[in-house]
């Protein structure tokens, strides 16, 4: 299995060199050489005029089962409140289900979850609700087993869930047991209608590269999606749908791990992943105390405070505020970046925001390329002026 370059055939023309998205090909002594790291994407094979690049195809895959129908959305809740990502996924799921001419179902585990009918108003045809005091906390062992059982019984063709700390931890376990593919952190989902395939697009390499991924032979096709990537639909009050209450079988479904305690992080008054406006600070702030400036601006705007990794690494603000590849992905209506250079790893977490404002004293900072509006200037002057203006204007 893998890629082979037939050196007899290779003319050293170099056509393949620029098409490799990873820059792994090089012509040495009139022959092409491949460095390590190939993902077998096939771009070079197409570019080769003499068919010298051989990629051994995966053995013919068995056809996907036709029994599987329907799109499922995992509707995450915490402490009885549905999370925003549940509605976002329903909006996308509705689109996918319509294209496939099939049903959309929401699956919710919890106890006394408020406003379950909202899932119908947001697009679900069916809601599978497993309600039990034992499911009040997000116990991943129980969730894993319960979800596997439901999927095995009802056989959906697509299952999507939020790439939250819960989703990222338990959905892979579900996929592992079901022996099916799972694509993490998708930013785009659409359907190849001819083959009923879910095309899953996601950033890799810290947002430098996008990859489109399919799961050909296994069902369900599974994906996690970061919160705030898709937009919610406006709820339709009279929408008809079925709410199916299922019993939780505590005899059969057990947990190996035990939750002893939950401690809330008190510094985060407005959650950045839910906020409409985020004011974010980077190394340009210089020290922890200067985050006060941002807090003042944030409170004038009803915004949450975010940060770059540099600011978090300096210990100026807790990690829960970090935006980026290794922090949170946010997609607010407005993102104000103050003293942040705009490294790809930071952009990966916020570049889909509706409006981006950059305040930075270096006109060449890459953040200005991502910005909708930019002010080149000292943030210690600009931010207080902005706060003042917003308070009084």
């Amino acid at each position, binding site marked *: 299995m893998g890629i082979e370059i037939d050196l007899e055939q290779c003319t050293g023309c170099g056509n393949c060199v620029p098409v490799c998205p*990873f820059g792994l090909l090089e012509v040495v002594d009139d022959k092409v050489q491949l460095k390590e790291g190939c993902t077998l994407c096939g771009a070079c094979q197409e570019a080769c005029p003499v068919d010298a690049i051989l990629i051994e195809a995966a053995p013919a895959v068995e056809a996907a089962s036709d029994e599987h129908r329907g799109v499922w959305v995992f509707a995450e809740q915490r402490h009885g409140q549905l999370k925003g990502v549940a509605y976002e996924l329903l909006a996308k799921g509705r689109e996918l289900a319509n294209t496939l001419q099939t049903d959309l179902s929401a699956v919710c585990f919890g106890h006394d979850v408020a406003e379950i009918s909202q899932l119908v108003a947001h697009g679900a045809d069916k809601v599978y609700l497993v309600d039990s005091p034992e499911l009040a906390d997000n116990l*991943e062992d129980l969730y894993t087993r319960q979800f596997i059982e439901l999927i095995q019984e009802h056989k959906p063709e697509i299952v999507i869930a939020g790439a939250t700390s819960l989703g990222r*931890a338990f959905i892979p376990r579900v996929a592992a047991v079901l022996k099916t593919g799972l694509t*993490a952190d998708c930013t785009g989902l659409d359907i190849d209608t001819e083959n009923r395939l879910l095309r899953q697009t996601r950033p890799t390499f810290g947002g430098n590269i996008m990859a489109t991924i399919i799961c050909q032979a296994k069902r369900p096709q599974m994906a996690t999606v970061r919160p705030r990537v898709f937009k919610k639909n406006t709820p339709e009050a009279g929408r008809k749908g079925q709410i199916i209450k299922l019993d939780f079988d505590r005899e059969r479904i057990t947990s*190996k791990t035990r939750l002893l305690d*939950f401690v809330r992080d008190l510094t985060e008054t407005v959650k950045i992943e839910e906020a409409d406006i985020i004011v974010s600070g980077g190394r340009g702030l210089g020290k922890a105390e200067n985050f006060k400036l941002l807090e003042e601006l944030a409170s004038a705007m009803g915004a949450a405070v975010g940060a770059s990794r540099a600011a978090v690494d300096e210990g100026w603000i807790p990690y829960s505020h970090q935006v980026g590849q290794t922090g949170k992905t946010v997609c607010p209506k407005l993102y104000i970046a103050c003293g942040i250079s705009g490294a790809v790893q930071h952009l990966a977490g916020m570049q889909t925001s509706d409006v981006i404002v950059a305040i930075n004293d270096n006109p060449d900072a890459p953040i200005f390329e991502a910005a909708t509006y930019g002010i080149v200037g000292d943030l210690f*002057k600009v931010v207080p002026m902005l706060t003042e203006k917003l308070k009084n204007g």
Partner: protein
Amino acid sequence: MNVIVCLKQVPGTTDVKVDPQTNTLIRQGIENVINPFDTYALEEGVRLKERHGEGKVTAISMGPPQAEAALREAISLGADEAVLLSDKAFAGADTWATAYTLAQAVNKIGQHDIIICGRQTIDGDTGQVGPELAEMLGIPFVAYVSRIEELADGQMRVQRMVEEGHEVIESPLPAVITVVKEINVPRLPSLRGIARSKSAAVAVWTAPEMGVDESRVGLAGSFTKVIKVFFPQRVSQSEIFQGELASQVDCLVGRLKDADLT
């Protein structure tokens, strides 16, 4: 206390640049490193062993032959043994096939109390291998661990991070955990470690030696398939304000008001 640490060699991407002409990643000058999150996994493994005063830390990695360098570095940082899972058959593995291969290696290694992974890799970026590995081994799993409070007598109590704060979780051992960078500050290699990393043997296990089912590894064992790779389009239509700072701020506030953003 026997610990297995899973680590991957990745390109250190801090300075990744895209060549505007060819639209490809510029690789020159990018070194391969241990996946940053896996250095915390390794450090935690070494600390556990030190705290318990006995046992060993085995670092395993699946990758091409040059991933041996990452394992040697792991030895310099305190790993006692290192195993490289390397075979052409493993190439092109997705997370399921990777987790399957690692699970076979864990079974071959035998007795262990805990398996530690990083929270995610910086190239693949999925964070799926840890939880999938746990499920394949049929043992408990805890993600995003930021502190091991206690670990003894076949039982552990850990803190793990969630969006709203942290949870305290108890689990029997053996278990798989993934760790976040809050958990520790990794040490620098010791002189003794560096010396040992030069002379120590790194075992290399191939597919036949591991007795894996070859239809479950590498590209053949991967359920997901990459059909297209492309560069994100950055539509740059920035408006950079000009003039006095005060009037720039006025302009900005005007734009935000017009868009109903204040």
